[in-house]
């Protein structure tokens, strides 16, 4: 156990994303309500966004903007001083994807609700079986 704690602390961002991802997956598999499943799906997607954002991070680094000072562009840029902006930019796109997925899913949920008057999966399945 004493060896395990430093491993967890050193890589806590990865552990956090795995925990979040498992919560999301659990909700998607185990929940009966279709909207609760959607909430789980969103947690799942957010955990991956968190993972990407955390890998761009560096200790003691600053935002990747070079000042337009007097000597701007005259000295070499050391990447160690700047946070890697690429994962964040990628995640902007991933957030757009996840928002549109959620939008489509909610629209489908409304259609399902109008048809069956419920969002509980077991009730819908029971009604389908009765037909």
């Amino acid at each position, binding site marked *: 156990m004493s060896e395990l704690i430093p491993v967890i602390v050193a890589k806590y961002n990865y552990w956090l994303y795995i925990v979040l991802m498992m919560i999301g997956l659990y909700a998607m598999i185990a929940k009966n309500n279709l909207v609760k499943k959607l909430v789980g799906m969103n947690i*799942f997607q957010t955990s991956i966004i968190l993972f990407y954002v955390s890998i761009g991070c560096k200790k003691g680094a600053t935002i990747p903007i070079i000042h337009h000072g007097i000597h701007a562009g005259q000295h070499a840029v050391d990447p160690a001083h700047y946070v890697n902006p690429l994962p964040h930019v990628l995640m902007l796109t991933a957030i757009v994807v996840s928002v*549109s997925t959620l939008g489509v899913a909610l629209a489908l949920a409304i259609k399902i609700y109008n048809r069956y008057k419920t969002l509980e999966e077991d009730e819908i399945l029971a009604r*389908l079986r009765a037909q």
Partner: protein
Amino acid sequence: MNDHTPALLIILPLLFAFLVSGMAWIKKGLCYPLAAGGSGLCAFFSIRLFAHVLEHGTVQYSLGGWEAPWGIGYHVDLLNGLVLVVVSVLAFINMIATRRAVAAQFPEKEGAFYALYLLFIVGLVGIAATGDLFNLYVLLEVASLTSYGLIALGGGRAPLSSLNYLYMGTIGGCFYLLGVGYLYIMTGSLNMADVASLLPPLYGSSAIWVAFTFCMVGVGVKMAFFPLHVWLPNAYTYAPSAVSSLIAPLMTKVMVYVMIRLMISVFCVDFAFSVLDLGNAMVWLSILAIVMGAALALAQKNLKRMFCYIIVSEIGYMVGGAWLGNPAGMTGAILHILNDALMTICLFLAAGTIHYRINNLDLDQLQGMFRRMPVTMACLVAAGLSIIGVPPTCGFFSKWYLITGALQAGQYGFMAALLFSSLVNVILFFRVIEIGYYGDFHHGRVHGSALETRTEAPAAMLVPLLILSAGLVVMGVFTGTIVTSVIDPVLPAALGRQPLCP
């Protein structure tokens, strides 16, 4: 190549999707011609691009002029050139063939339907053309999101099956994204060619192993590889017929292409076969996919649902072929992407045409179909013969390569599974023929009843179907040319070095 054909392939349908959805407010009648124009232009440019690649070799295109490892590069070689042509041409033919069915089924929603249709083409064409791992994820989600919407247009259980597909599809997409994340941590690059050149020193790392697994599971969900297939039958059965004949042939095939692309040009053959030594396990999984797909297809009482399980089984063919680890298997897998797309669109279009006339696809409703719709049923039988693998049709040749590959690799189980599923397909299609041909005799119907009258579908639906069925034989005849001029050059040299018996 200095011109912008690779970008036009994606931008044109995107632009036309926008125009179509705007046109829906102004003049509904113009939606279809606009959509057909966009799809036709896309098909034209992809054929032109493929011809160019055949003549001058691989095309590299940098979007916005940013060079490849920094910007997004489109990389079109013979393999994705072929997939591009398959996707855009089949989508175009399907749009023409299903016009009547769409107009009859959603007279109010034509604008939305065709806009989604074009966006779906954008997604698939983009997946095939891109040389960037993250760009592939975005386009994958474009294709998936539009297919959720298209499937939900069907009545009855369609929204529920679409939502279930959405849950599974999102998990698949996220797994792929996670795999790309691990690759990015290790290599710092997202360009496929660049990643491939940076990877070999890192082959020992467990992060790369995790990346590969996540990517493969993600792609496996999206292509409905056997244990992950549960979303497919419902989604494709309850979708409107014009949609299932678009999505069923193309989406799963393009995902098989993605798997092959990851195997041969990102992680490379050495990693997949020598470092991980996954070949055996994957071939056994595909044996399971083939056998279970075939067995479940036998249990179905609905024509479209039966075809859905045939797809599950065919996915097993392609995955297994690619993982046999020898040139014959890989050739069979790539050839089968082309052939299976053609066979499946034929099957689903024929099913859609029958549905257009009799509004029911339960097997016991198909009595007397040969007398009522002889041409449609002839096309269905042609596609069925190709699925079974009867020689002049193209299905025979890809199955031949797959079986040759299985023999060379010593995977007799895979060969047995292929033969088993062929036999099951014989039963499946002869059952359809029996019901369609002799069904009414069993019920003692007299001549001159309603089932006797010929109610063939309109020519606008039949001509594309006939062209596709003829294509089945033409592809079969030209298999040799396709293999030597298109598939052989893209096979990685490393495959030849694989030991023939693992």
